[in-house]
């Protein structure tokens, strides 16, 4: 009796899943498939009503032969790995410092997470003003100690670092929030037992807290990695990809290829490469964090 009921249950499970699965297929897989298909075509925005022309792998060959595209891959990887590493470190340190309860802590935490709530376009413009060589606050304050003025966003040696700082400012609170939630999940009895056993702060941190929050850290790293690969608005508003192409991450390169050069096939090829790159990096991160978890 039990055996015979299984296929029926399975079928109804598929039936219940079908609406969600079909919506997912429609809104997720169809655009991805179309992008993939379009990456093998030449299609310009100047003639959207005309059908795209099949060009095989020409778009990919053109991209990998382009110095600007190669530079944008390098910039993207540098930007993403830098922001993820620094944000994880800073966010974890801050969460460890602020995990206890003391007066005014709630208000402080609320204020601290404000940057995440600001619209990216505002963040971009705000930092552009702060970095302004003549009227920006950063050069203004540095002037008091006889430094500058620096072209934070116009100097090719400084621009990417300046953009990384802005991203760290906005997204460290996100890491802080997740890690804080992870730390609050550390069982109190384990902590009490450790205290009774006479562990010091660093031993508690190293052998209890960090192992407990390693899964949270892993998933936070993956989320931030994916997000940083797709960053567009803040950097676009700060530098537009310049000076030269020194802050032109792949999403800006993609945007310019689609809307400035108006080559939708080539832009699709950029999107496909970006997707593959994110998938590779994310899977490495996920695999590593799972390994940690198993240990």
């Amino acid at each position: 009796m039990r055996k015979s009921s299984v296929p029926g249950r399975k079928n109804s499970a598929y039936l219940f899943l079908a609406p969600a699965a079909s919506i997912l297929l429609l809104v997720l897989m169809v655009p991805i498939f179309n992008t993939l298909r379009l990456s093998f075509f030449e299609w310009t925005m100047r003639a959207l009503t005309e059908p795209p022309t099949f060009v095989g792998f020409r778009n990919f060959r053109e991209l990998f032969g382009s110095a600007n595209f190669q530079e944008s891959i390098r910039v993207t990887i540098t930007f993403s790995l830098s922001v993820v590493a620094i944000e994880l470190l800073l966010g974890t340190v801050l969460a460890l410092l602020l995990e206890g309860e003391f007066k005014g802590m709630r208000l402080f935490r609320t204020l601290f997470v404000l940057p995440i709530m600001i619209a990216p376009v505002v963040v971009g413009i705000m930092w552009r003003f702060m970095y302004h060589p003549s009227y920006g606050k950063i050069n203004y304050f540095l002037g008091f100690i006889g430094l500058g003025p620096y072209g934070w966003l116009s100097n090719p040696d400084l621009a990417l670092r300046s953009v990384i700082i802005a991203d760290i400012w906005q997204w460290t609170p996100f890491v802080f929030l997740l890690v804080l939630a992870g730390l609050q999940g550390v069982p109190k009895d384990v902590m009490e037992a450790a205290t009774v056993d006479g562990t010091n702060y660093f031993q508690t941190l190293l052998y209890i807290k960090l192992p407990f929050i390693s899964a949270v850290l892993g998933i936070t790293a993956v989320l931030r990695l994916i997000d940083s690969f797709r960053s567009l608005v803040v950097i676009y508003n700060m530098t537009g990809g310049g000076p030269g192409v020194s802050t032109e991450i792949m999403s800006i390169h993609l945007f310019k290829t689609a809307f400035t050069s108006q080559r939708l096939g080539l832009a699709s090829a950029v999107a496909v490469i970006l997707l593959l790159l994110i998938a590779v990096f994310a899977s490495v991160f996920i695999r590593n964090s799972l390994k940690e978890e198993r240990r």
Partner: protein
Amino acid sequence: MNVRKLVSIAILLTAAAALVFSGGAAEQVEVEVDPPGGREFDWRQYEGTTLVFNFPNHVHYNAMLEAGVLEDFEALTGINVEADRMQYMNMHDAQVLEMSKPVGDYDLISMVVMWKAEYALGGMIRPLESFFDDPSLTLPDYRFDDLVPAYVEVTGIAGGENIYKDGPGAQLYGVPFGSETSFMIYRTDVFEEHGLEVPETYDELTETARYIYEEVPDTYGLTMRAASGHHATHAWLLHASPYGATVFDENWEPAFTSPESIETIEFMKKMIDYGPPGMEGFTQDEEFAAFLQGDAAIYLDASVFAGPAKDPAQSRVHDRIGFALHPRQRTPLAETGGFGIAIPENSQNAEAAFLLMQYLTLPEVEREIVLAGGAPFRMSTVEDSSLYDEYPEFEVLADQLEHANPDWRPIIPEWGDINNMLGIAINQALTGAKTPEQAMEDVYEPIRNVMIRAGYID
């Protein structure tokens, strides 16, 4: 009825009579003003229509809004105008997407001149000849010939053998509205105090900028846009024209590796050295701000900046500025650019949109916009010497327009792509990431490939 009541009634009656008769008298003395085009023209033939007008947040269009001419048009025609104002660099994407639909929402668009050929050849905007030939739509005293000829060519003519220039097969697709040439604005106080002559050549300009940078406290030489992409290309073109450099030769082969082109970049690098900090990252807004704040003593770019430079609300130096011709070097050529207005092919209200286009560019309406800080585009305004006391820039503009070059940049449909690539390379040269020669050499093949793909060269 007592005396007091009688007096009250008499006063009330007198007051009422005074109100009634004074109103009547006012009606009698009111002079009815003829609408533009005279009484015969039927301005109300599209009454009740709603038009969507897409235009930039730009000096001239802001003056149009301030002058209230859109409201005047609505009152005159009974046509409702919905204004869709955008940052100008974002308009292109919105317009292309809108004009690619079978039925578009835009009825009148403002286009940067560099999009003109792309729109015209792509069948996205309408030729205007049939509208101007229709007497029911065209005002008898529109005075088309009064529009600045160089502006008409650069903003409106496209589609012929010469693609973006006048020539066989070319048609009129737009009219100037927010168009510009280039001239120089300088700080009279700085020049007078230091006994400086207004530079007439690029060599003199270089020397003057150096002097100001080295000798005038807290003041820099020339303000210039130079940010990677469009802004750097614009600045290069602005100075390349007098230096005799071009993007392509007569056979559409890239020519920007020429000695003249390198010389132009070397000049720009010197201006960066003598200019405000971080100028290699300046967009147009920052270029403007450096002059308006009094940081830079010389401005050399679009003439449309005269309005903000003279506006006390925007400019700290509004009372200390002079105007001069764009310096020459090998040639005296100045830019032509800015905006024109056109009617999308997929507009459902093209005739009503043509009425708006015509109204906005009428001599009397142009005058209202100019008085509100807009840019003149009719010869009758530029050459009206009675305006020169209040608008000294018009006198310079009248002379400058003789050298305004409609072929200032090759605005072929592929220009957007080329503009971006060239602008990245020029910015790399300006920031020192590459030498001028290396930067231009590196972008030579990619741009040549664009031209091969588009069929201009083999």
